[in-house]
């Protein structure tokens, strides 16, 4: 533990501009490479266009600069961060700098040897993803055979004494298994379970028609979660992230643009939110040529939707604007074509019917048990290249059309 008796000692030597909060949460997306091919991945669909990764030294600089700005929580993510063989070096430096270090992993590649190395480096916590409580669905959704491996990895994580968060992304296919997923988390000794309903960005947006659950499925799952919270809440804290398509008010996305979160993509692009890469006309500054301080406080990208001044109607005159901050900019763009519009999850948005339509399509499909019109599109390099080139040529291939909002939601 750092020396707590040390006084503040003017560590904040440079003045902080008034009214701009600190970037407390740094997400280091070390790589887009990933052994899994999950259909609900939020990574940009054209990730193969941005695959040139920062070097170890460049990442170390990012960590130092972010810590100097006040970042305290650090997530190592991706892709799969374990494919970087310098992960232990980065964790060790991060820990030395005083970060709380979180590894966000699929578990693939997390051998006992690497767990030893990460523990020696001072890693604080591991978040392990599962796709389902059954091998069949886990392996189908990730397009891999990884279920048993993940179970072994979970046991090793606990043997090493790390706090463990299990994360499972929820959608139409696995919502009916929520009780079994919770049982699995309890059996594995997870301290936290994050049941994150799919957010429809990146690959998930491509697969929205297949993944979108029904209201009934969600209500049942939430009732199950409530029951477990009452009986097992002491042992395992269960988070249930509600899918906002079913709400009438938008989420307070990222707790505000440029307010807490600073993401750095594998190629060094600085991200005000995970999905910022999809916004047109937003020039993302790069850590390779711009100091992080300048990126956070001065760049157009981080100031574009900061605060409330950018809002249009109905947000501008809305008495709830300080509560939800107008919702999600990427969703506003995907569904209305303008990232400065109100998030159409809000029923005050003139485009709210686009959200209702998506939900209703899923309900009708479930009721009629219709065969799906299109196959699930797995996140892999071949699909990414095809989608990126389709977007670049201004067209969409037959396989990836059919979302019906006509707003060109592909990235780049």
């Amino acid at each position: 533990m750092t020396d707590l008796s040390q006084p503040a000692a003017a560590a904040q030597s440079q003045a902080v501009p008034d009214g701009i909060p600190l970037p407390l949460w740094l997400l280091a997306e070390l790589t887009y490479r990933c052994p899994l091919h999950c259909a609900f991945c939020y990574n940009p669909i054209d990730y193969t266009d941005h695959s040139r990764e920062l070097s170890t030294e460049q990442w170390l600089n990012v960590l130092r600069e972010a810590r100097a700005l006040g970042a305290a929580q650090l997530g190592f993510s991706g892709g799969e961060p374990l494919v970087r063989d310098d992960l232990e070096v980065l964790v060790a430096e991060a820990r030395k700098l005083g970060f709380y270090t979180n590894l966000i992993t699929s578990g693939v590649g997390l051998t006992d040897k690497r767990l030893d190395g990460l523990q020696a480096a001072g890693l604080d916590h591991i978040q392990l993803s599962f796709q389902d409580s059954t091998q069949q669905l886990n392996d189908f959704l990730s397009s891999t055979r990884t279920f048993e491996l993940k179970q072994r990895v979970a046991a090793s994580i606990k043997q090493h004494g790390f706090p463990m968060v299990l994360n499972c992304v929820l959608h139409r296919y696995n919502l009916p298994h929520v009780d079994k997923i919770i049982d699995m988390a309890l059996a594995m000794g997870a301290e936290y379970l994050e049941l994150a309903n799919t957010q429809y960005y990146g690959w998930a947006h491509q697969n929205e028609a297949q993944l979108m659950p029904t209201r009934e499925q969600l209500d049942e799952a939430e009732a199950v979660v409530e029951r477990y919270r009452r009986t097992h809440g002491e042992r395992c804290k269960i988070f249930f992230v509600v899918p906002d398509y079913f709400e009438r008010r938008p989420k307070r996305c990222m707790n505000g643009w440029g307010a807490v979160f600073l993401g750095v993509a594998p190629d060094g692009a600085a991200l005000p939110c995970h999905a910022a890469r999809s916004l047109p006309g937003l020039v993302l500054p790069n850590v390779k040529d711009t100091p992080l301080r300048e990126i956070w406080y001065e760049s157009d990208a981080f100031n574009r939707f900061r605060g409330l001044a950018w809002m249009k109607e109905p947000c501008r005159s809305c008495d709830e604007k300080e509560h939800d901050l107008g919702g999600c900019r990427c969703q506003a763009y995907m569904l209305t074509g303008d990232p400065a519009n109100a998030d159409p999850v809000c029923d005050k948005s003139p485009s709210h019917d686009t959200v209702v339509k998506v939900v209703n399509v899923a309900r009708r499909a479930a009721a009629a048990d219709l065969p799906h019109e299109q196959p699930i599109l797995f996140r892999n390099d071949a699909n990414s290249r095809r989608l990126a080139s389709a977007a670049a040529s201004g067209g969409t291939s037959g396989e990836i059309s059919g979302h019906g909002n006509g707003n060109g939601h592909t990235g780049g």
Partner: protein
Amino acid sequence: MNDLTRAGGATPTADCLTISKLFRLQWEPAQNAHVLLYPEGMVKLNQSAGEILKRCDGTRDINTLIADLEQAFNTTGLGPEVRAFVADAQSRGWLE
């Protein structure tokens, strides 16, 4: 922390207050505050909470902790406030 050399500290026992190993207490210069860090989260502490929790290092029971605080801040009567905070911290899982 050098206040451990103070005479009269309790012998470490099961009654000694200790931060849960799911949490890490740390001074953050940028926030000018103590914070509790845990998986993907952080609690910013006010000054009293920080002063109490930094003494929950496995060497003091509640009585010693109160005496220690009263001496450090040259005051008396902190007992009820400290006990209430410690009970709250325990219910939040911050303490072992």
